[in-house]
């Protein structure tokens, strides 16, 4: 909130708040932070609806164009454009073809778009494939990669809704995978029972690791961001240690990897053995429905949302806040634990040090992109799954490093988190600034007076 230096006794005229965009933001933040008593919620309540709060009536078209859904679309677009520019600038072939751009513009444009074409071919539909199976393989790959992202993303999103920043999905995935894999390769049971027990074990593993965070938060006030970051590392080192012990290490192997899980503990393949897509994806759909039901239809979910909106108000209303905090972290951890199950029981079929890859961190961006709603998270998971799956194909085909996916993902989230920024870039601010001068924060008379008084004193 920039503020001009000059004391402004002369322009203190308006009794009402100046009608700038930022002033609306001011109101929103005052609402979100309970007037500066707490940090703003991760996904501000005011940005979860389809419309911007305080927006003028205007035409329907204008409302759609300036609404939050539009901001999401524009954010994705902007990130893809920026990613494209980055790839074009670093690609020597683009510089080469740019030399004769005016003679043959097609060459350069092909070079510029080649990575994105490969990305789509690797994630949605491969029109160059020989048969239907090869053409559809990319989309099944996207669904496979999305499965753990959706599950872990739901865990992060659920905690967001209760006002908790769960960075610990990584550790919770590891614990889920650890428990599930152990049940998967040490017990030998008939098919469905075994799989079910593996799922339950993963659920419990994640719930334990998430519940610890909730417990510490509720009992001692330890900040969950710090605790989860630290527990991620602890879980990771614990996993690396356990994989060197006889209980977990594969017989006759010197590598820190576990035995394969029993066939009866694996998710069945949905489309036959030539695709990697497994029934874990159905679990992700079920989990999405469950979280939707929990948040929208259950008393517990209402308590979570109340605690997320304003803890003090929730306490006053008779909600047991510590209990809600512990429970929401346990359930969030359990969901992330299921992501671990999707890895060991579906995609990888054994436990290794890299079981969680970077899913836990991607899950944060997934939840943010999905605005912490269950179905939003689901589709955000699909999108980022497509980026991941397509990124692998892109790297193989065009030698564009897959790291560009990280750049695009984080840019998307950065833009989505700051709707006013995106609207400013596209000139879609709902209200035109009436006065170009005078910062937004300088509006009210009393503070202006005090300030100028202090300046002269």
């Amino acid at each position, binding site marked *: *909130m920039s503020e001009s230096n000059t004391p402004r006794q002369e322009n203190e005229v308006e009794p009402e708040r100046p009608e700038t965009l930022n002033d609306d933001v001011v109101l929103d933040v*005052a609402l979100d932070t309970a007037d500066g008593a707490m940090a703003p919620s991760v996904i501000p309540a005011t940005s979860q609806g389809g419309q911007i709060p305080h927006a003028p009536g205007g035409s329907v078209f204008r409302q759609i164009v300036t609404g939050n859904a539009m901001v999401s679309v524009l954010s994705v677009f902007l990130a893809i454009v920026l990613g494209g520019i980055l790839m074009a600038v670093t690609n020597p072939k683009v510089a080469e073809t740019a030399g004769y751009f005016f003679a043959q513009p097609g060459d350069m444009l092909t070079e510029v778009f080649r990575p994105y074409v490969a990305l789509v071919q690797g994630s949605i539909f491969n029109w160059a494939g020989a048969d239907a199976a090869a053409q559809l393989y990319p989309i099944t790959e996207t669904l496979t990669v999305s499965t753990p992202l959706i599950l872990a993303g739901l865990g992060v999103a659920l905690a967001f809704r209760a006002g908790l920043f769960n960075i610990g999905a990584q550790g919770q995935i590891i614990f889920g995978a650890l428990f599930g894999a152990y049940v998967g390769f040490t017990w030998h049971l008939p098919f469905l029972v075994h799989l079910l027990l593996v799922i339950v074990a993963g659920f419990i593993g994640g719930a334990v690791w998430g519940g610890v965070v909730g417990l510490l938060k509720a009992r*001692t006030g*330890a900040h969950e961001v710090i605790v989860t970051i630290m527990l991620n590392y602890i879980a990771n*080192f614990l996993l690396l240690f356990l994989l060197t012990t006889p209980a977990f290490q594969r017989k006759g192997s010197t590598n820190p990897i576990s035995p394969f899980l029993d066939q009866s503990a694996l998710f069945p393949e949905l489309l036959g053995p030539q695709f990697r897509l497994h029934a874990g994806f159905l679990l992700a759909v079920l989990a999405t429905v469950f979280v939707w039901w929990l948040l929208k239809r259950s008393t517990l979910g209402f308590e979570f949302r109340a605690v997320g909106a304003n803890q003090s108000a929730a306490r006053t209303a008779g909600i047991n806040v*510590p209990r809600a905090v512990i429970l929401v972290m346990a359930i969030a951890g359990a969901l992330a634990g299921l992501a671990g199950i999707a890895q060991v029981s579906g995609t990888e079929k054994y436990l290794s040090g890299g079981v969680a890859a970077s899913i836990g961190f991607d899950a944060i961006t997934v939840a943010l992109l999905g605005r912490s709603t269950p179905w939003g998270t689901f589709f955000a998971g699909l999108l980022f799954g497509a980026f991941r799956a397509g990124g692998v194909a892109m790297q193989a085909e065009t030698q564009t490093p897959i790291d560009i996916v990280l750049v695009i993902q984080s840019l998307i*989230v950065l833009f989505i988190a700051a709707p006013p920024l995106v609207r400013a870039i596209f000139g879609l601010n709902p209200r035109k600034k009436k006065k170009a001068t005078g910062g937004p924060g300088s509006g009210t008379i009393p503070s202006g007076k005090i300030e100028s008084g202090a300046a002269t004193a």
Partner: protein
Amino acid sequence: MSTTTTQPGGGTPAGSAPASPGKTAATELVSWKAGIGLSLLAILGTVLFGFMSNSKSAGFGIAEAANEAASSVAALVTFVLALLLSVALGYLWFVRRRSGLASGSGAVSGSGTVPGWLPPSTVAAVVVLGLAALGVAKVSKITLPSAAIGWIASVILLGLAGYTVYLTQAKKATPRWVGGTFAAVFLIGFMVWIVAGGNGDEPSISLAGLIAGSVTLAVPLVFGSLSGVLCERVGVVNIAIEGQLLLGAFSAAVVATVTHNVYAGLVAAAVAGALVSLVLAVVSIKYLVNQIIVGVVLNVLISGLTSFLFSTLLTADPDGLNKPGRLPPVDIPFLSDIPVIGPILFHQSLVGYLMYIAVIVVYLGLFHTKWGLRVRAVGEHPQAADTVGINVNRTRFWNVLMGGAIAGIGGSFFTLVSVDAFSKDMSGGRGYIALAALIFGRWNPIGAFLAALLFGFADNLQSVITIIGSPVPSQFMAMLPYALTVFAVAGLVGRSRPPAASGIPYVKG
């Protein structure tokens, strides 16, 4: 970092380590955390150091001096100076304490008139004295029997824990020295136990090498946590330390290579760190986005960006873009000849010396200048600060920028001092450890510095004991900093309270 000023369930305001002993009245509730925590640790210590000790003895090598004559002169001078200093400080402490007791102002622990800096300075002087004495006596190696030391340490630990429990039962606060002594004895017992558990008949490690390595490993952590201190003290949570370190390392490597000048690389690193901070500041202060989100996202962005540029540009032309050269270590004449202390403190690269300067400047700036008072006011109660005419958001903006520059310099350590080339994600999560150090050090530059040293020590110890072999799996050693931090934020190691307005954007009106 706290979301609210009143924590749910945090109904134990009386911390185990009384930060303000004068206020702790006997009637106030005294937390059981300290008693229980120390008892558990004491039992753990007894089991490990006592029952699980072996018949071997642990050797701790003291570094051999490069220049024998200069070394012994330096040792003698240091010995005399340290002796004078410890006697003077000890006398001052004694006098102050007695006058405090006489006047009755410090009824609880008697430290009413003893200034806070006095006890730690005295202890430090005595430690320097001891080390210098070793140098004067030309001791090259200390050998300690594992079992005997283990049992002595166990008994002391149990005694201290018992004393704490007794005090808690009598509704008295535990004095500060109990915790300090406990930690020191635990550390000694642990070191002896772990070294004696190594392979060979008489396993030994080089103490000076161990500590010197720890300081080196701690350099980026210290810079990172100072960045965190500057940002959080002004009310902005800085999770983006990792990104600042990484981009600092990247630009230091590239700029130093392109300009053939390592010092240009150092400046570029600071600029890069500030650039990350600029995004953090603009998005979180101007657009009021949750600061933690911005930090997390920035870390991902920087990681992706540097990895992408590394894979495309730097690997294509490593000689032209990724060969920065190194900042050589500089010896400070005379001081670097002091045995043990010299190689640790006065044989550093430029970045290492900048670290000492940064710690001192940030500490003095925050706690002994008008600027620091304003900064802390903005972090604790922005509304009050605004009322007296401080521009809250401008103060925040510049502080965050400054923090970023400091973290960026820390990042240059990776490419200009440690390894002379950039590689993917080479900061390896140290930004998060720096965050842990900041919390463990209770949002204080000196505390953060010491915590970073501790984490560097744990890091280095891990690699050292992997070489000599040890009873503890290296993974558990690697876990140590993180576990300690969890204990710290859970309030088991004294109370840690973040600046009140940390994480909350300020909106006027």
